[in-house]
């Protein structure tokens, strides 16, 4: 098994293109090393992207739109005061993953490419309308985050490509987001439902735009367009919250396992979507 630590996107792309066997990208390693130890994967080449400046940097502003490197850690996002203020939901999604030790290493790029339907950092990215810059042999291409996970552990990214950065849209006035998840334990657990809500108001309390994305309720994290729609034109009154709850439940096609039955996950999806919407709404109103 070879290990390479390129310092540019081009160098990384060339390494991936030249590898005949299995190549894996290493960012934080909190999933990759676990899978290697369990013999689930046996890479011939590991490409550590932490030496690539773009992949390790948060740049931009709320007004211009942030660019977050795929290998930026959860702890670094959580310590970035303006990112936290502008995109509290995206930071919440990244910052609830694992322990202090895992936060020092885990990344959104890795969380996305692990391809889990329950990935905590993904619903808020989808709700935000974030895109990923994917580096490959023909340069960079930009794909909406919501199109990347196509099934459990299946990605719309080729073997010779990798995610370099995430782009967030400009943060508009009177808008905010929130991510909320439900886990059987209070910490160190996998979401049985996670909901990201991003919404904008007219400054007087009426919602003018809204997106709701939910994780762990289907084979992939899903953008629940019907749930976003019911919020628009409302002031998040009781009837709207009930309609949101119903739309979230209608989008559910979850697994049945020891951590939650289908009925339970479906019920909780409505509750969590509601609460995430309430938090995002309060934040948007205070801006």
């Amino acid at each position, binding site marked *: 098994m070879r290990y390479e630590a390129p310092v540019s996107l081009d160098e990384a792309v060339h390494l991936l293109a030249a590898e005949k066997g299995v190549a894996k990208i290493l960012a934080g390693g909190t999933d990759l090393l676990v899978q290697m*130890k369990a013999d689930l994967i046996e890479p011939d080449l590991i490409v550590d992207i932490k030496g690539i400046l773009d992949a390790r940097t948060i740049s931009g502003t709320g007004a211009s739109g942030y660019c977050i490197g795929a290998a930026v850690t959860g702890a670094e996002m959580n310590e970035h005061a303006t990112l936290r203020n502008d995109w509290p939901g995206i930071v919440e999604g990244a910052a609830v993953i694992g322990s*202090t030790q895992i936060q020092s*290493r885990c990344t959104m790029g890795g969380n996305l490419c692990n391809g889990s339907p329950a990935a905590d950092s993904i619903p808020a990215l989808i709700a935000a309308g974030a895109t990923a810059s994917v580096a490959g042999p023909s340069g960079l291409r930009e794909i909406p985050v919501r199109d990347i996970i196509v099934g459990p552990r299946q990605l719309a990214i080729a073997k010779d490509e990798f995610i370099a950065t995430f782009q967030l849209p400009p943060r508009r006035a009177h808008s905010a987001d929130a991510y909320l998840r439900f886990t059987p334990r209070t910490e*160190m657990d996998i979401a049985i439902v996670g909901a990201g809500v991003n919404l904008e108001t007219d400054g007087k309390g009426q919602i003018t735009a809204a997106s709701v994305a939910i994780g762990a309720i289907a084979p992939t994290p899903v953008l629940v367009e019907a749930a976003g729609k019911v919020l628009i034109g409302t002031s998040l009154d009781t009837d709207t919250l009930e309609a949101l709850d119903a739309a979230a439940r209608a989008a559910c096609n979850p697994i049945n396992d020891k951590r939650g039955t289908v009925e339970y996950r479906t019920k909780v999806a409505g509750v969590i979507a509601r609460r995430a919407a309430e938090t995002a709404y309060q934040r948007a109103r205070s801006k």
Partner: protein
Amino acid sequence: MKHHISFTVNGDPVEALCDTEQTLLDVLRDELDMTGTKEGCGTGDCGTCSVIVDNRVVCACLILGCEMNGRSVETIEGMADGDKLHPLQQKFLEHAALQCGICTPGILVAAKNLLERNSDPTETEVRYWLAGNLCRCTGYDKIVRAVMDAAAEMRGA
């Protein structure tokens, strides 16, 4: 594939040869004979192998040794000053914040990193910070009290 890595451990420059597969934990224990850092689960769940890399607490079992070039690593071996225990170590003894002791090096290292960032943490902050350090003996209460007491003493010192 062998990698020649050079980094610092507790301020001292070290060099080692490691295979790609070897983790930082393997390098510390098997190549550098620094066995103070323990292996627990080996999958990042228990925090037993906690060390500090470039001022961040991490699980040494989830980092490759070959990632370590140029890095600064702090381990339990660097905590006491000769025979003089670190205040956290002293308070762990006074509060009997350990029984079998296997989790203790990791918890001490993680707690030290917390107190370097926040000299006056609340009990809740201590509990969340150490949530990734499992202890099957103490029930955590004595650990949390020892950390709070050490923090108070260090603020006074």
